């Protein structure tokens, strides 16, 4: 049974005058998956870097391990590939097996098994520099899983991948999670990836702005939203003229479909709008707008 809870107690991290994480507290149940979402600079990578041991916090405490004090083994898939391009896939995996203290025979077996699972058996003797972006990321995942970690940290692992490679990676990750019941903490900009997690933690300027299961975060938006793509200011204006309550997003504006809204009439109005299922991006936009309104 997995016993690797992660706990952050009032963690603060500064870079000069900039507060990257501001008194963040989190309690993550062993075996659960948490998606970290938030705009660039919100503190996701800083938080993962602290959990990975790449830096120490300026304040607060981090606990990685069981209640009985046993340290958790941590695997990390970084934002950029941590593989040496001049080494082969096998050599890279053997190197990291050595770093994790695996004995040679155990390492050989783990490499064989993991290469099979991530679909790299045929490429074991190829240099990493010859792999596609998607295959290199799978190799990174295999590297992070070599020592059977209790906690897996992923920092935007699908950034820069095409849709097919991204889907393949996410499905692989899901399969590994189900199989091994690891605690997974996954920073992502992709709402569909975040929605697969048990819990979503939204970060904004180094603080937690929301922390709930995806369904709870989506619930206030209802079944459907109206979206007007384009420049946010103009899109907000358009939805307002339609009698809706819009929120600006990165790609335009959205509005809830409240009872009494005549969707058919809106869609026939000739404006460039569409009706779709709400996403976590929408939930985050609404939350940020509400926070800004509250502050002002």
């Amino acid at each position, binding site marked *: 049974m997995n016993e690797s809870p992660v706990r952050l107690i009032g963690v603060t991290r500064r870079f000069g005058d900039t507060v990257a994480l501001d008194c963040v507290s989190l309690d993550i149940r062993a075996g659960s998956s948490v998606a970290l979402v938030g705009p660039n600079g919100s503190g996701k990578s800083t938080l993962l870097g602290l959990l990975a041991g790449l830096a*120490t916090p300026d304040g607060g405490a981090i606990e990685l391990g069981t209640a009985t004090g046993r340290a958790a083994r941590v695997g990390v898939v970084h934002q950029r590939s941590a593989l040496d391009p001049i080494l082969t896939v096998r050599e890279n995996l053997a190197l990291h097996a050595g770093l994790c203290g695996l004995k040679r025979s155990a390492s050989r077996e783990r490499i064989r098994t993991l290469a099979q699972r991530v679909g790299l058996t045929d490429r074991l003797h190829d240099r990493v520099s010859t792999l596609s972006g998607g295959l290199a990321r799978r190799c990174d995942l295999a590297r992070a899983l070599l020592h059977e970690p209790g906690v897996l940290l992923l920092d935007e692992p699908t950034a820069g991948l095409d849709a097919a490679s991204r889907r393949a990676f996410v499905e692989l990750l899901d399969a590994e999670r189900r199989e091994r019941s690891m605690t997974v903490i996954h920073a992502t900009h992709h709402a569909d990836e975040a929605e697969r997690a048990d819990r979503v933690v939204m970060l904004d300027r180094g603080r937690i702005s929301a922390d709930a299961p995806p369904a709870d975060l989506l619930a206030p938006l209802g079944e459907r939203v109206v979206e007007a793509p384009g420049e946010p200011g103009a899109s907000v204006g358009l939805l307002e003229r339609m009698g809706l309550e819009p929120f600006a997003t990165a790609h335009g504006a959205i509005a809830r479909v409240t009872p009494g809204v005549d969707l058919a009439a809106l869609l026939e109005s000739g404006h460039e709008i569409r009706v779709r299922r709400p996403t976590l991006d929408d939930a985050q936009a609404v939350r940020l707008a509400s926070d800004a309104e509250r502050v002002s």
Partner: protein
Amino acid sequence: MTAFAVLLWREVLGFVRRPSRVVATLGTPALVWVFLASGFAGAQTPGGESFGVYAAPGVALLVAVFGGLLAGMGLIQDRRDGFLAGVLASPAPRWSIAGAKVAAATLLAAAQGLLILLAIPLAGGSLTVGGVALASGALLFASAGVCGLSLAAASRIESPQGFHGVMNLLIMPMWLLSGALTPLDDAHPVFRALAAANPLRWGHEAMLGALRIDNAGALAWVVAAAFAGLGVGAAMLAIGRPARGRAKARR
């Protein structure tokens, strides 16, 4: 294999698979040696040897300097590529990561410098097994010092250009003031004083003394060894510590 061993293996394998690194470390000093040996063929040297033979230990030191610079650049590259983050986030102890980096850089730089020393007969000099062994020890000390300092600087400097600038300003004057090209006995008192404080000068003197089978003096060996210790220590401290923060993470 231990973390130290696999990282050492990776550095050596990476070096072998990048022939450009061998050219960059060994090629330029070898050319410098050839040009100096032929250009100053008639110059008098303190030991009476040909200038090519006199300059060989200095050129071997230059190989160590270039090896150190390349090791530092390699560390910056590893950080930019993301490889270093993967290594530092692994369960491997930090001392083994830092130690392997320094050991690999030192061994590779010293091994290439040794090739220069072994080529001394081509310049008309003679070698003894004992002399080469002792000179290799001095070269190893100098390489450890230079590579360690270079890796320590690289671990704190973000840009390759900045690193190159800093190292050129620091290490090249040290090499020029080591007596590598000209004896320092008749130099201006200011330069003699600077040379006396220059650990590479003592490494050079130990190497030259070993090859001439005369006594370089204990001081040269002590300073050379202390420089090696300083370089290794600096690298271990700089690479072996996570980015600063006041609180402790409990793992």
